[in-house]
């Protein structure tokens, strides 16, 4: 069975290629795949007749109780025959149904075969979770097939409707499956069936399972999706919506029935739902003018009948249901094929426009007549055998059985009526309607229909032979039954009812064909309207909720978040009032100086109107923070903060030179007050939280134990640096990755698409970069007005020293303030110096490498150190101390985490270089281009 599933999957994947190469003829080849399923099932007929199951088990996800347990019992054997047989015929039919120019045909073929595979998997899955997976796969494939024509709105709406309704039911079913599986401790149906739960638990599980089955099989109130799904191409309707997908629900009922039929809600739900569906479907079919819709509603009606038969939980009814299942698949697929042929041959499916087709296409007429007769239940066809068996099974005499019989008789009479309407509408000559010109019917389209119609006749005539096969399924029901499928049982009450049905149907047809007033009658409750209302309501709700919450304004979002912070934090503070005492005014009186500078700078920064002033003031707060770090006993922080602050200032200036000097918007006074109020509130609350958190702290800091291992394991005396590269190296790893991503983002924002933004077209060439590797060629590349001789001289003197100093910082960092971050930033600042002194080409001379390569190399080195430790048998990023005694040099002490720091160093250099290339050199280039374009335009105007 697994092989069959794999064959389906492979064929589905190959199908688009085959169709591209062979055109619609590829469908003949593809038809072999479902046919293989049919053939495989036929070879196991003997086993099935003896009531033995064919089983295969492959482990999949053992810890979740999911395994590919495949099992073919009698019922699944029957379904495999239908899915394989009808699938093969539908694919053959497709070969002529579609023209070579049909768009999306390759995808269609793949999805169709994939659907057949999913259906096969559903049928043979013994594991209920796997069954669910296949169940939803059929839903998804059906969605794709109904929506075959994505340009048509009806097709999209119908596809979505089918998807939502059946998925909703499927989800309910999943919950039911989990309830059963968790109770039994196994998800294999063959094991669940041995220990079913009871009481309310069982009732809930059954209702959930039935929701899945009923929505899939379009039983009332879920019936509405099936007729809409007729937007699909006709072979899809024939296969999915007559033989295969909708039968999944019926199959599930048949599968669970022998065990769960005794549960409380089982019979009432299925019998009532089935009967109502049967009547509603039949009645609606009589109203249709489109032949395909007529058949669709007929399918709804027949599904109701099947649910009644298989849902009764009686041995004889189940036998009859299995027979009806077979009969329905054969005649309904055949009739859909006929409708497709009629549509092809005449160009319409509207029975008011068709006339005289019986004479024009006699072969088609005979096929249609044979299939339709089976649908109506005319002897000696399969439909008659099945329907009579159903009637007989409910002649027990209980009150509910009488109701069901009445419903089935009435529903079958309606079936006869719409069958007649179908035959009359499609084939009869009508007064006042011109016979339409008829194209020749290609035999590959007619043959599948004819084959199915003849099979319906054979199944009727050889019903006793089928009885021997199907009885092994029916006998799994608990109650004793003695019924046998046959054409002739003698003069039984069931035979009388069958005759009554045929006569009554004819009368109904004769009455409804003449009068019209009855057409307006509708069911008071309608699933379709409810669905539309629910979807529209959902849409309205989504719009209202989104409109109310998603204002699209950044200040509003941020303000909301901050106000929540104020409310939560503030109320927490108030709740713990009074705050614990014991504060100090300061640790060190010197702190007062930077603190005062910082406060003044911050307040003025918030008020500044000029961009540059604001940037400088913010920079002052940064430097003041660095001083506070020093005074707190954190020299590493102070060093890094100073370097970063300088870098940040440079970046700001690089960008701001292009932006207007003043902030453009003069904010309204009221809005400004609100902002300041929120700002002050946040400041007060955060201060309070900072105070409360620090004052409330009682535990000893974990880092008090860092110093000793920093030396003995980490091999460094600077505890902060050892923390970064060893104790918490993972944090640093994450951080340098973030830096890399941010720098890449900067480059893409500045470089990406700038050509288009900068007005393409006539653009004068820019001066070429200087040749050779001469130091500080600024005289050749920068305007004289932009040059600064002092800066150039200082740069010449300082550059090498600074770079050397950075290397010292890098390696000294393990034992003194410094480290990879500080070192890298120092190199970055040296590059900034070169760039500022010599312009953008100088940057390329100073660092003739790709910034991305430097960052990548850094990350590689850092990661490599971590992996090397892993390979050496330690943990990731574990460091090792190495001590050598080298001649001449003396004692060498080395820690592997130092290499990690080299990686950090490289990443930081790469990041700064990348930023300079983007915000510096590339922005320069933009400016030059714009100036050149402006100059060119001015010259044009002068001329």
């Amino acid at each position, binding site marked *: 069975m697994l092989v069959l599933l794999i064959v389906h999957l492979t064929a589905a994947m190959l199908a688009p290629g085959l169709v591209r190469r062979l055109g619609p003829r590829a469908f003949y080849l593809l038809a072999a795949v479902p046919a293989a399923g049919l053939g495989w099932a036929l070879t196991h007929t003997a086993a099935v007749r003896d009531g033995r199951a064919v089983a295969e088990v492959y482990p999949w996800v053992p810890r979740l109780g999911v395994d590919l347990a495949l099992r073919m019992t009698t019922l699944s054997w029957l379904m495999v025959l239908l899915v394989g047989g009808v699938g093969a015929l539908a694919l053959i039919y497709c070969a002529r149904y579609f023209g070579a120019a049909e768009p999306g045909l390759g995808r269609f073929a793949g999805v169709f075969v994939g659907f057949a595979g999913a259906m096969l998997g559903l049928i043979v899955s013994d594991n209920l979770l796997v069954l669910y997976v296949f169940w939803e796969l059929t839903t998804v494939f059906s969605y794709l097939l109904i929506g075959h024509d994505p340009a048509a709105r009806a097709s999209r709406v119908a596809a979505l409707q089918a998807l939502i309704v059946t998925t909703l039911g499927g989800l309910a079913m999943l919950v039911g499956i989990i309830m059963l599986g968790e109770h039994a401790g196994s998800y294999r149906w063959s094991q669940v069936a041995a220990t079913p739960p009871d009481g309310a638990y069982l009732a809930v599980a059954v209702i959930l399972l039935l929701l899945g089955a009923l929505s899939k099989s379009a039983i009332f109130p879920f019936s509405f999706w099936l007729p809409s799904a007729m937007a699909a191409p006709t072979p899809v309707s024939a296969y999915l919506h007559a033989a295969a997908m909708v039968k999944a629900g019926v199959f599930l009922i048949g599968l669970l029935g022998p065990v769960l039929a005794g549960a409380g809600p089982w019979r009432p739900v299925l019998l009532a739902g089935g009967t109502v569906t049967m009547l509603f479907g039949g009645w609606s079919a009589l109203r249709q003018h489109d032949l395909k819709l007529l058949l669709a509603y007929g399918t709804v009606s027949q599904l109701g009948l099947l649910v009644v038969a298989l849902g009764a939980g009686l041995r004889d009814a189940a036998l009859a249901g299995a027979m009806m299942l077979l009969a329905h698949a054969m005649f309904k697929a055949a009739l859909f094929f006929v409708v497709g042929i009629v549509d092809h041959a005449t160009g319409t499916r509207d029975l008011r426009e068709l006339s005289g087709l019986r004479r024009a296409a006699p072969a088609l007429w005979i096929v249609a007549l044979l299939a339709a007769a089976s649908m109506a239940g005319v002897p000696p066809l399969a439909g008659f055998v099945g329907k009579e068996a159903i009637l007989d099974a409910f002649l027990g005499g209980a009150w509910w059985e009488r109701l069901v019989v009445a419903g089935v008789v009435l529903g079958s009479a309606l079936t006869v009526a719409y069958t007649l309407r179908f035959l009359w509408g499609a084939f009869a000559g009508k007064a006042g309607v011109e016979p339409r010109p008829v194209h020749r019917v290609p035999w590959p389209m007619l043959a599948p229909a004819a084959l199915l119609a003849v099979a319906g006749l054979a199944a009727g005539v050889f019903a006793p032979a089928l009885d021997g096969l199907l009885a092994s399924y029916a006998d799994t029901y608990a109650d004793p039954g003695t019924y046998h499928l046959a054409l002739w049982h003698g003069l039984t009450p069931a035979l009388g009812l069958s005759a009554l049905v045929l006569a009554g149907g004819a009368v109904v047809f004769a009455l409804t064909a003449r009068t019209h007033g009855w057409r307006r009658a509708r069911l008071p409750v309608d699933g379709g309207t409810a669905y539309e209302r629910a979807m529209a309501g959902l849409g309205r709700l989504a719009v209202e909720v989104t409109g109310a919450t*998603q204002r699209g304004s950044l200040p509003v979002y941020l303000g909301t978040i*901050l106000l929540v912070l104020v409310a939560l934090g503030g109320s927490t503070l108030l709740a713990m009032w009074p705050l614990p005492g014991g504060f100090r005014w300061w640790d060190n009186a010197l702190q007062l100086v930077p603190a005062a500078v910082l*406060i003044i700078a911050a307040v003025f920064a918030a008020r500044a109107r000029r961009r540059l002033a604001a940037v400088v003031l913010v920079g002052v707060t940064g430097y003041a923070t660095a001083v506070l770090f020093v005074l707190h006993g954190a020299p590493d922080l102070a060093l890094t*903060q100073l370097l970063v602050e300088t870098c940040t200032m440079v970046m700001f200036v690089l960008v701001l030179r292009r932006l207007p000097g003043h902030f453009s918007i003069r904010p309204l006074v009221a809005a400004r007050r609100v902002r300041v109020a929120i*700002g002050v509130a946040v400041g*007060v609350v955060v201060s309070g939280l900072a105070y409360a958190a620090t004052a409330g702290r009682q535990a000893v800091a974990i880092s008090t134990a860092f110093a000793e291992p920093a030396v003995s394991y980490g091999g460094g005396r600077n505890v902060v640096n050892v923390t970064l590269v060893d104790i918490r190296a993972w944090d640093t790893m994450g951080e340098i990755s973030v830096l890399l991503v941010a720098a890449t983002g900067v480059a893409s924002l500045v470089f990406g698409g700038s050509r288009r933004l900068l007005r393409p077209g006539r653009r004068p060439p820019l001066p070429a970069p200087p040749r050779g590797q001469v130091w500080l060629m600024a005289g050749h590349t920068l305007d004289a007005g932009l040059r600064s001789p002092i800066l150039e001289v200082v740069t010449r003197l300082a550059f090498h020293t600074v770079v050397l100093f950075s290397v010292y910082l890098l390696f000294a960092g393990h034992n003194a303030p410094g480290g990879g*971050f500080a070192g890298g930033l120092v190199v970055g600042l040296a590059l900034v110096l070169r760039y500022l002194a010599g312009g953008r080409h100088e940057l390329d001379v100073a660092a003739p490498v790709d910034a991305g390569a430097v960052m990548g190399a850094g990350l590689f080195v850092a990661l490599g150190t971590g992996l090397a430790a892993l390979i050496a048998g330690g943990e990731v990023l574990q460091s090792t101390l190495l001590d050598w005694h080298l001649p001449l040099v003396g004692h060498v002490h080395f820690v592997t985490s130092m290499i990690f720091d080299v990686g950090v160093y490289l990443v930081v250099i790469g990041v700064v270089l990348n930023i300079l290339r983007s*915000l510096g050199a590339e922005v320069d280039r933009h400016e030059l281009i714009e100036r050149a374009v402006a100059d060119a335009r001015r010259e044009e105007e002068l001329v």
Partner: protein
Amino acid sequence: MSPNLLLVIVVGVLFAAGVTLLLERNLTRVILGITLLGNGVNLLILLGGAYGGPPIVGVTPEPRMSDPLTQAMILTAIVITLGMTAFLLAMAYRSWLLTGHDNVQDDVEDRRIRERAERDQGLAEPDDEEPAATVAAGAPR
């Protein structure tokens, strides 16, 4: 632990000034606000660690060391702030390239949804309106 009231006040001022700038529409101001907030957060973390001498073995006796863990965290935060500031600045520059200013505009799609809500309409069908993207795309400066 006894809090350093001076640092508590400094943190409060940095947050107040930072938030005031953060709520502006001008992207440059927003970035400056984030930088101020960054400094404030770093000092906030610093507050949580012990005051003392530099945590270098041999320089400061172990019991008098300042807390190295908070410092390692702040160091990470400082460098990340650098990366983020660079990214936001690049964004401001691009915004200026695209629209000629660096103000954060309201989202066009969100405004359309709000208008639908005010007109009591449901979800838009794909066929109903032209895609918003063609409306929203700002003309190059």
